[in-house]
């Protein structure tokens, strides 16, 4: 590793480590992209591929992102964009969870789907896509539905759970497991021109309260479907929340939900502040 570090340092120009040098180091020392990226960041070398993150994300923060593990539950409309953005951001470990394969009706919006990936497991497509865009990121593919039975295990070691599910009942299970596992959950949901985002920190019950009137079935997405742009908008807002949670900066969508209407271009903030508890007189 000493040799590898010297190698990386020698190739660093103006504080930036070029991708070509990272590749050469991987080849020369017979190691992985993840190992080289970790070594570089731990020693203050900023991989040039992240240079436009700089001034917004410091080297220490880029290292923290690299050392983070984020679970993406659902790899369809929202999940595809979430995974794409997490990988480009430089989040080192992504757990991609989805039981489904790509079907033709996914092609209008799900970024991981192409005519060539029809019939392919969504999580496999996620692995392939991330390997293509950022080989330093490790994707753990889980071709299974997230539920109460396996949830705890799937969230082990995870810093944030991203809700990219298309079912309210599974979403409520994710909220329950996230609370029990003390993992922050970034919640997103879409339907047609509409969507919403909220962040639930351990101990909060925001997601349960968002769906307090839910009885059974789906929401407006059942009639409206989903177009190309709504998942991209909501997924991007979710990733911004993930980034802030991992770096401990900014103001989260905690105890509030952003409701987005892309048809009328309206954004509404709905408060989920817990009413102040009054002290009982003894």
């Amino acid at each position, binding site marked *: 590793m000493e040799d590898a570090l010297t190698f990386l340092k020698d190739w660093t120009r103006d504080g930036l480590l070029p991708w070509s040098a990272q590749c050469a180091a991987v080849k020369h020392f017979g190691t992985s992209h993840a190992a080289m990226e970790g070594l570089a960041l731990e020693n203050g070398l900023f991989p040039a591929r992240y240079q436009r993150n700089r001034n917004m994300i410091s080297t220490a923060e880029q290292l923290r992102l690299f050392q983070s593990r984020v679970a993406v539950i659902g790899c369809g409309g929202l999940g595809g964009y979430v995974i794409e953005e997490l990988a480009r951001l430089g989040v080192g470990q992504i757990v991609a969870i989805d039981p489904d394969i790509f079907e033709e009706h996914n092609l209008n919006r799900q970024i991981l789907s192409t005519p060539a990936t029809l019939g392919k497991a969504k999580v496999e497509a996620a692995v392939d896509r991330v390997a293509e865009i950022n080989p330093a990121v490790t994707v753990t593919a889980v071709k299974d539905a997230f539920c109460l039975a396996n949830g705890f295990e799937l969230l082990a070691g995870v810093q944030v759970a991203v809700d990219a599910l*298309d079912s309210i009942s599974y979403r409520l299970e994710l909220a329950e497991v996230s609370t029990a596992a003390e993992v922050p959950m970034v919640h997103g949901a879409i339907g047609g021109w509409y969507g919403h985002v909220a962040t639930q920190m351990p101990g909060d019950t925001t997601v349960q309260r968002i769906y307090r*009137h839910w009885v059974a079935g789906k*929401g*407006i997405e059942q009639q409206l479907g*989903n177009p190309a742009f709504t998942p991209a908008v909501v997924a991007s807002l979710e990733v911004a929340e993930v980034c802030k949670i991992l770096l401990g900066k900014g103001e989260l969508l905690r105890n509030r939900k952003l409701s987005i209407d892309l048809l009328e271009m309206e954004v509404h903030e709905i408060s989920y502040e817990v009413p102040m508890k009054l002290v009982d007189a003894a």
Partner: protein
Amino acid sequence: MHVTVKLFATFRNGRFKIAEQELPEGTECRRVVLDLGLTEEEIGIIMINGRHGTLDQKLAHNDVLSLFPLVGGG
């Protein structure tokens, strides 16, 4: 009594964004929802004067009732 009803997202289709309604004293939120041709299953959020409400809740004079549909896709 006088109540302002605000509708959001798909609830506006064929209806309105905002309307003033004259309702009998003590009308429940559910009555307003059903009179709009909406079903209980479609309801995502009920806000009464900016606070979360329920279908059973009785409305009062000058209340502002906001209704959002359920959104659950991904």
